[in-house]
């Protein structure tokens, strides 16, 4: 006659240590989480940043205007996108350029002419605003060269390239 296995009823594991650790991790990840900005949420491209060795300077999140050069994930077209991070300044710039309500997006897809006007207005409304070029590593250098020319034309001779730390 085969032995009948006794069912273990009311089997209990003390989950307290596990819950402690889990809560610790949860709070850590919750506090370090940085949410996407309005501009990033609606963009249709992902920028694969060029690699560079470790640098101590991080991308500032205040008083900065970013010129993104991205490749659209659907169409594969490269284009410039312009973002002024400071909302007040952005509104002022858009007012000065008489933008229609449809154009007042946090991140604008722009051509070189509009980029020139936007940079000029950014310089006027905030002379201390810094510029950063955030380009995809796969784009042709021509795109960056043209953006630098526009910056130089507006007397913004010191700017930043956004990079990613090489792993």
């Amino acid at each position: 006659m085969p032995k009948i296995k006794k069912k273990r009823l009311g089997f209990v594991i003390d989950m307290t240590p596990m819950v402690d650790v889990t809560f610790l991790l949860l709070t850590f990840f919750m506090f370090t989480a940085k949410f996407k900005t309005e501009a990033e949420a609606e963009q249709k491209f992902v920028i694969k940043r060029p690699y560079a060795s470790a640098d101590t300077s991080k991308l500032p999140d205040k008083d900065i205007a970013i010129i993104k050069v991205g490749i659209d994930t659907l169409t594969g077209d490269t284009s410039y996108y312009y973002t002024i991070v400071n909302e007040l300044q952005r509104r002022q710039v858009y007012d000065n350029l008489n933008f229609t309500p449809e154009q007042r997006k946090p991140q604008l897809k722009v051509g070189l002419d509009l980029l020139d006007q936007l940079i000029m207005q950014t310089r006027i409304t905030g002379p201390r605003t810094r510029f950063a070029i955030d380009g995809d590593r796969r784009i042709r250098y021509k795109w960056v060269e043209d953006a630098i020319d526009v910056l130089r034309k507006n007397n913004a001779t010191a700017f930043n390239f956004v990079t990613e730390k090489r792993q």
Partner: protein
Amino acid sequence: MAGGGGGLELPERQRRGKKHSKRKKKKRLGFRIDMTPMVDIVFLLLTFFMYTTTMVTPQVMEISVPKEVEENVEVNQANLFTLYVRGDGKLFFSMGTDEPQPLALSDLRSKAVELNLLRKNKLITAFKPSPDAPYGVVVQVLDILNQAEAEIIRQLQAEGIKRERKFAFVKLSPEEVEKLKGL
């Protein structure tokens, strides 16, 4: 997993009536709460936050270019170290008016250090990326030059010389683009 559940049952004494309600409260030993639903939710949130976090924060490379000036600056050709990046991402270099020669990215650092130590502060580095060059390679070259710069500063300091960096982005002329294609 059942959580024991002993704590949820009403003790027998209390059921008897009001008479005994003033009795001293007995310490409840071995009290247990079923933590399973809480753990479920906590794990769900934990996995959500873990997947959505990006650990890499973008960093920046500082670049400065000269202001737009009308007149050209004359330089001594012999001290000119030119770096080219071709459309396919290959790197070339030339000294003075020499023909461009191929250079591996891994050799760039030692080359830059060597030439700068040889000519001290006189060497002018001109960087000429082709308009077709991949931006990633251009940044990589700049990064290597920045790394070399740290070493040059250290070595020159040992000799008691103050480093003055001479570096410029220069546009590639159409003739040079053609020349590079043929190499």
